């Protein structure tokens, strides 16, 4: 029997104070924290748009078209062996693009491994965003310069970082909001819980965006949680939860924008659950037919974020054929540029392996670097005439086993 289960006044010892059951009230009124009863939507609601919002919706559309093309291109690059693996966000472009656009210059984005599109939409060069998945380095961009944390593969582990960074910025008196992205499966991880709890206690300026795309690889949401919604999880931490149609880009942008503004004003964190769907397999290495059917996917194809926004913009006469063509052409050019640059071998320097393990390389690492250098020199000396010596092949990232490596990598990444 815990102290709170004892009937007040019936404490034999008499020493213990009466537990405060009688006048007890929740510390926070949960009602205002409860998420929207139905997912928040803007498309198809006849919402009135001022000039600024019209521009925003057009900008979102441009982002979605680029994003869809980027997803297609990246998936194609896996088939050509140019990417080791690609977890596509096809069907989730509204969340990816709106997340990037909801942030101000000085804010930070904390993406998960599926969110390269959000990273690109924030302005990072796609080749740099894809470095991790090509395999020439882990993080291809300079996180501090672009204020985008490394893509996080260990699920939900980036969430406490977002809290710590936002908290640190607040302690320093800086106006910085962190937006952290996680999947529905990731909400089962301990780090999700700890991050929300720390953020709430510290009132850290953080926005948590959960993209509920229905699956964690093969596991459907029903096996992940018994919560009424993922947004409801916020309430237990004293954090407001929001539920939004994740394929309605203007709605996602608005909800995230409000959460960012709330955080910026000192109101603390918000948990946003965006309902969306992973249209493609988990990655190119996954076989989705083992756990879902085409009939399962079909309704979501009819609720496509790009098509929804395009139809609405055309209805409202905010998009002409010519504009749509121009945007599609731009996206095509972006894809061609990406393809071209990804089709060249990345420059690799094996010495990089040792360069950033410690601030100063240790004696031990200097010895190992020297050993590798010696091996490479010996390889080159063995066969100086061959244009494609092992050393060179290694140095350019192409060796005899390249295809095996890629194959293995794909299997492992699944």
């Amino acid at each position, binding site marked *: 029997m815990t102290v709170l289960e004892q009937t007040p006044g019936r404490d034999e010892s008499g020493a213990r104070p009466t537990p405060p059951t009688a006048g007890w009230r929740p510390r926070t009124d949960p009602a205002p924290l409860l998420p929207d009863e139905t997912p928040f939507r803007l498309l198809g609601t006849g919402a009135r748009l001022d000039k600024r919002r019209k521009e925003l919706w057009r900008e979102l559309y441009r982002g979605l078209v680029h994003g869809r093309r980027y997803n297609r291109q990246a998936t194609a690059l896996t088939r050509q062996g140019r990417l080791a693996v690609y977890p596509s966000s096809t069907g989730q472009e509204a969340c990816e693009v709106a997340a990037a656009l909801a942030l101000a210059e000085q804010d930070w984005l904390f993406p998960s491994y599926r969110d390269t599109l959000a990273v690109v939409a924030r302005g990072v060069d796609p080749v740099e965003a894809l470095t991790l998945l090509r395999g020439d380095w*882990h993080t291809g961009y300079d996180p501090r310069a672009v204020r985008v944390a490394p893509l996080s593969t*260990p699920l939900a582990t980036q969430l406490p970082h977002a809290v*710590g*960074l936002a*908290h640190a910025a607040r*302690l320093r008196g800086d106006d910085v909001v962190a937006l952290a992205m996680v999947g529905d499966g990731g909400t089962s991880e301990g780090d999700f819980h700890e*991050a929300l709890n*720390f953020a709430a206690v510290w009132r850290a300026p953080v926005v948590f965006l959960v993209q509920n795309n229905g699956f964690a690889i093969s596991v459907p949401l029903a096996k992940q949680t018994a919560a009424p919604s993922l947004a409801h999880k916020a309430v237990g931490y004293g954090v407001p939860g929001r539920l939004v149609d994740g394929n309605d880009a203007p709605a996602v942008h608005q909800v995230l924008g409000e959460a960012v503004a709330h955080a910026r004003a000192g109101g603390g964190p918000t948990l946003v659950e965006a309902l969306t769907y992973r249209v493609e397999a988990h990655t190119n290495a996954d076989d989705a037919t083992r756990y879902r059917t085409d009939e399962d996917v079909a309704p979501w194809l009819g609720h496509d974020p790009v098509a929804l926004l395009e139809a609405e913009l055309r209805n409202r006469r905010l998009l002409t054929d010519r504009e749509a063509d121009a945007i599609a052409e731009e996206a095509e050019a972006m894809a061609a540029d990406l393809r071209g640059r990804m089709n060249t071998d990345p420059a690799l320097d094996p010495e990089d392996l040792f360069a950033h393990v410690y*601030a100063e390389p240790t004696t031990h690492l200097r010895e190992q670097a020297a050993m590798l250098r010696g091996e490479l020199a010996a390889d080159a000396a063995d066969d100086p005439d061959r244009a494609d010596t092992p050393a060179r092949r290694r140095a350019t990232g192409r060796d005899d086993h390249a295809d095996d490596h890629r194959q293995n990598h794909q299997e492992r990444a699944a």
Partner: protein
Amino acid sequence: MTTATSTPARPAPPGGPAPTTMAQAINRALRDAMAADDTVHVLGEDVGALGGVFRVTDGLTAEFGEERCTDTPLAEAGILGTAAGMAMYGLRPVVEMQFDAFAYPAFEQLVSHVARMRNRTRGSLPMPLTIRVPYGGGIGGVEHHSDSSEVYYMATPGLHVVTPATVADAYGMLRSAIASDDPVLFLEPKRLYWSKETIDLSSPPACEPLGRAVVRRAGTSATLISYGPSVSVCLEAAEAAREEGWELEVLDLRTLVPFDDETAAAAVRRTGRAVVVHEASGFAGPGAEIAARLTERCFHHLQAPVLRVTGFDIPYPPPMLEKHHLPGVDRVLDAVARLQWESDHTEGGAA
């Protein structure tokens, strides 16, 4: 039980040499680091009003405020994960893990992020944070309060792993750990918290550079290699060994990663015989790496295999039995006796 209490760690007011405990020296190092650099933040469980269960953070919240010395929610992954985020923003967090065995929930953050953030971002996001972990046995702690967890950290590239054996080192090495631009595991031998040395904290000891071992006692017969709580055991053993006619050298490693091969190899070459002593279990323990490295570097100087005296390969025992597990003077002397003094080769493993 996290109820270890003692006199507060606040050192005697400055003014000349005074007996100082290791806990007080660590407290003073934290205070001096916080005063010198306003990006230093202390985070942990009970580090505020209570001053930590070992009183090591006593007075820091009072002096620097709750934002600089913060009682966090009770969640070690959250503590280290948020500290990593703070470090990403340029702060210099000093995290207290309440006990060795309670640092395990933070392991994923440590291994997957803290240790490799610099590497994966090509130096863009260094992790200048210090993780203080009270560790080791000999304090009569019940289950989960006496682990020697150093080998887990040693096996993780990207971390520095250090542990002081003296009060002066506790101060100097902690200042250096906090000043380091890399993550440092600062392992505090619990049973030395109350050990005293007379040092002058009004002119604090120099910040010991990390990465250097030190000879605590010169000798010619054999070299005892140790760190943290086992250094004093080795010194005692060396004293006792004089009766047997052995002059034992005692090396205090201080830094386990990066390992000071130079000093350790020189100490072994001088005597040609070596015993590694630590509390952690022997199998795949720190001594395995140390003995292998020394054998690789000193093979032709060695008169006998490098032996190990370690804790048994068992879960840490209950307090009433821990004395059998912990390497003591007798076990060290037994190992020394097996260093093939008669050069009649005998088969036999470590104690």
